[in-house]
């Protein structure tokens, strides 16, 4: 059971662009993609955006390569936190399927690993990681089922960022030993996406083993989704949803009226 997922597509205002990215992802064989809304609370009281409803973007979702089912599109929120006050779990977070945090300092990284109610912790790709990964918080995160994410789009764009991406990824892999890693695109344009097998092979550069690299684009992503669901439901055990009322009543009524008529005649 391995369907490929790409849990980071940067959202933009341009709907056509987003559509072409999702279409490319479907062509490459990704079964699930997540549209990422990045929030940086440090910059002038930025508000948490409301996620676009997915059905707004597409009338009909493109069919995944090699499958007969259409592609699944999710919403994801990433908070760039440089201060402890930036991460406040409010109701607005609940409208997203996934919540990620990008800690800027070591203290926040520790807090994100141990206490924050998130699914994904991002690591730096475009700059040198400002702190070392310590074993204690990383192990804590693995125990809690929180995943670390590294994006490859920056590595494709530029040589210097490629060096940072690879260096940061390797220093993370040394600590977590290839466990609880997801590799996602972070693509802003359709041409920044790569095929899932290419990414699994790119794990070679991040010093991941073959199996771990493949898990990083498939089964680990699935665990992230399930972890995201446990936030919305009571630990994933019980799930409540509103029952649509009006149509059922009509159904009940119509046979009654028929009965009444038959009795009358």
């Amino acid at each position, binding site marked *: 059971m391995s369907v490929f997922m790409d849990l980071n597509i940067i959202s933009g205002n341009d709907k056509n662009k987003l559509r072409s990215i999702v279409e490319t992802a479907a062509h490459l064989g990704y079964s699930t993609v997540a549209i990422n809304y990045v929030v940086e609370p440090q910059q002038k009281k930025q508000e948490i955006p409301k996620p676009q409803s997915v059905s707004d973007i597409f009338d009909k979702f493109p069919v995944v390569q090699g499958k007969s089912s259409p592609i699944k599109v999710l919403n994801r929120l990433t908070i760039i936190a440089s201060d402890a006050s930036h991460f406040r779990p409010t109701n607005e977070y609940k409208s997203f399927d996934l919540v990620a945090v990008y800690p800027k300092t070591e203290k926040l990284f520790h807090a994100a690993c141990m206490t924050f109610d998130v699914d994904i912790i991002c690591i730096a790709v475009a700059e040198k990681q400002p702190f070392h990964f310590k074993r204690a918080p990383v192990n804590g995160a693995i125990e809690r089922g929180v995943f670390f994410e590294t994006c490859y789009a920056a590595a494709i764009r530029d040589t210097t960022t490629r060096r940072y991406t690879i260096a940061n990824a390797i220093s993370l892999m040394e600590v977590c030993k290839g466990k609880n890693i997801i590799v996602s695109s972070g693509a802003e344009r359709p041409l920044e996406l790569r095929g899932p097998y*290419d990414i699994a092979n790119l794990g070679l550069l991040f010093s991941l083993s073959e199996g771990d690299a493949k898990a990083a684009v498939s089964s680990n992503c699935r665990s992230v989704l399930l972890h995201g669901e446990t936030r919305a439901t009571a630990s994933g055990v019980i799930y409540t949803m509103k029952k649509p009322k009006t149509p059922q009543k009509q159904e009940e009524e119509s046979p009654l009226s028929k009965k009444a008529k038959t009795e009358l005649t």
Partner: protein
Amino acid sequence: MVRFKSRYLLCEVCVPDRSSLQLLEDRTIYNTLRAAVNRAHGDYGSALFNIGVIVKYLNAHTGVVLIRSRKKHYRLIWSALSFITCLENRGQKVQCFLNCLHVGGTIRTCQKFLVKYNRQQLHRMLPDCKTDAEKQEVRRAILSCSLSNVREEEAGEDGSDDDGDKET
């Protein structure tokens, strides 16, 4: 008998505009790939690239490329493949990326896979058809897909045949 074992990387060149695929040449891809390997893996990568890597086949209509590499270090060559962002031919730059479809031990397995893959593409095309004539054309193409056809024709001809369907 001792022979050099190879791996064949069957790749697809993805471009935003299909007409720019016509510009592609074997040499373009070879040079771009060499530059990419050199940038990603330095002198060591270049040295490995110089032994055994060759662009075996290119279909400029469908954008399918077959690259041969030694079995021992094909993953190194492959990892550089994902860093290609544009191909340059005679001063014209084409923004693109390479998507690896299949890794095979022989050309034959790659060919088999390619027939299967192209057939899949035709199936994907079917719901998008607007007129009945187009639908008939694609259906006919799907039925004509088999490896025996490929063996009779040259591999290149099969590709151009396929392209005719894609344009419908």
